[in-house]
């Protein structure tokens, strides 16, 4: 019995227009992982997800889902999978409840069991009061949550999330992540693609970065973030500041009269910075990271690959 939920070897995809979307990627994802698959637009993320979920035909390579080779027994492999696609993929004229129950039926789940699971999921995803509405009347965020309910109704062991929070407002996004983290804690392996890199940083244990059809990085989130050589912090000041104090060892910028940006290298520590600021009579009220750390790494990795 393999320790992997998903094993991809030499996966290639060439589309009819001769675009080579995947150039032989290898990827192994451990059971129970919360895994981020990131990359710029057109990098090959959706092609990978599409092939795993059988929406796209592969050109070459092989895929095993929980040890089941998709070329040997695709129906069995597919029974382990739940997929939240990037674009809405349900009939807009069906009722919310019918969409979820029908999806369960496609997996051979009897109606009475499906109804119970549907109620449970719609309640957790704050859609229960919309169960009788036609899907076309839902908001963008509600539609995305319906996609999640649909993907989970057959209780998959591996959940593929292709941009699950696109168009979802901040509060609901947080609720969705709590819900997904809970599912992951209960043992479901999750693979995520997203453009919100801070979400990947916050929730995922491991990460692969794909660009132009090849994997340019595949490591743990912790290891990747430790490679950061500099970090920027936003300091909200107690009093107004007219000019930047001369603290030659630190790189400081004044964003406005009460906000200072401090950029620290790996060797510099925050205690020294605070001491120096105190010596100058500057009191810091609060502090936060200036920008998403993963974003910075992501851009760097993709640029390195492009040779820029």
């Amino acid at each position, binding site marked *: 019995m393999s320790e992997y939920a998903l094993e991809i070897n030499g996966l290639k995809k060439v589309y009819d227009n001769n675009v080579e979307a995947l150039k032989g990627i290898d990827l192994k994802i451990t059971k129970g992982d919360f895994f981020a698959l990131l990359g710029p637009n057109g990098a090959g993320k959706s092609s990978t997800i599409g092939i795993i979920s059988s929406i796209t035909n592969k050109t070459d390579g092989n895929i095993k889902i929980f040890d089941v080779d998709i070329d040997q027994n695709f129906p069995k492999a597919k029974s382990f999978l739940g*997929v939240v696609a990037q*674009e809405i*993929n349900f009939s807009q004229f069906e009722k919310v409840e*019918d969409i979820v129950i*029908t*999806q369960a*039926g*496609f997996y051979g*789940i009897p109606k009475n069991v499906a109804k119970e699971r549907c109620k449970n999921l719609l309640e957790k995803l704050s859609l229960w009061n919309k169960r009788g509405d036609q899907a076309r009347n839902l908001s963008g965020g509600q539609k995305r949550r319906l996609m999640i309910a*649909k993907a989970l109704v057959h209780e998959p062991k591996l959940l593929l999330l292709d941009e699950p929070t696109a168009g979802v407002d901040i509060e609901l996004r947080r609720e969705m992540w709590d819900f997904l983290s809970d599912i992951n804690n209960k043992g479901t392996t999750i693979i995520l693609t997203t453009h919100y890199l801070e979400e990947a940083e916050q929730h995922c244990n491991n990460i692969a970065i794909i660009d132009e059809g090849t994997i340019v990085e595949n490591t743990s989130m912790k290891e990747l973030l430790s490679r950061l050589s500099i970090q920027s912090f936003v300091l909200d000041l107690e009093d107004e500041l007219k000019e930047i104090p001369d603290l030659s060892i630190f790189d400081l910028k004044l964003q406005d009269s009460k906000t200072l940006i401090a950029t620290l290298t790996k060797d510099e520590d925050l205690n020294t910075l605070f001491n120096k600021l105190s010596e100058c009579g500057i009191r810091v009220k609060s502090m936060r990271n200036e920008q998403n750390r993963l974003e910075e790494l992501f851009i760097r990795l993709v640029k390195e690959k492009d040779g820029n």
Partner: protein
Amino acid sequence: METKELIWSIITLSEKELRRFMRIWVQTLVPPAVTTSLYFVIFGSLIGPRIGAMDGFDYIQFMIPGLIMLAVITAAYSNVVSSFYGVKFQRAIEELLISPMPTWAILFGYVVGGVARGVIIGVIVFFVSLIFYPNFEIANYGLTILVLFLTSVMFSLMGFINAIYADSFDDIAVIPTFVLTPLIYLGGVFYSINILPEIWRNISLANPLLYVVNTFREGMLGASDVSIPLALAMMIGFIILFTAICLYLLNKGIGIRK
């Protein structure tokens, strides 16, 4: 999938297909009743008496099997072509592709939808015809039901093939409008080919729809212009051929997978 799961999945898809056309019954079930009533009023009651007998039957009586077939063929074909193209267009096809349902079960579910609509429409049009010709008696119930069923299956499969290749809503209208309708109208719905000059009679014999319409007329009236065993064999042959084509296309992912 285990057998029990497979059966549930087929029931689910079939139920979904039935729900789809029942939900929009004003668009799917009412129009054939209205159109057929107009045919009966104009060609049956107003013009029919002037035409006189056709193959020994009142003209309105002669028209009934043809008009039922016209409605059944159109309903079965358009149900599957619009439903399957609709799920492609809305990307809801992904729900099926992602699931472990085998391709034959997907095809079966859509054909169930097409057959159900075809048969329901056939029954509706028959009851409408009884308003205009109350003394109508079916000559051979077994053959009538068999042809109704085979026709619905055959045209559901044709609709499925059309939907697989369709890339736009225009593509699902081209075949019914420019191929199917002319072949049905020239397939003996309104006349017996015995009234045609020999050359047109021979050309008409190359029209497959003539065999469908006439076999059904044999079932309902006991009169036909073609050989019934040959016609039934043709229909079964076409069903086998279309099923094989559908399964080949589905398994290859043509028109549905990237």
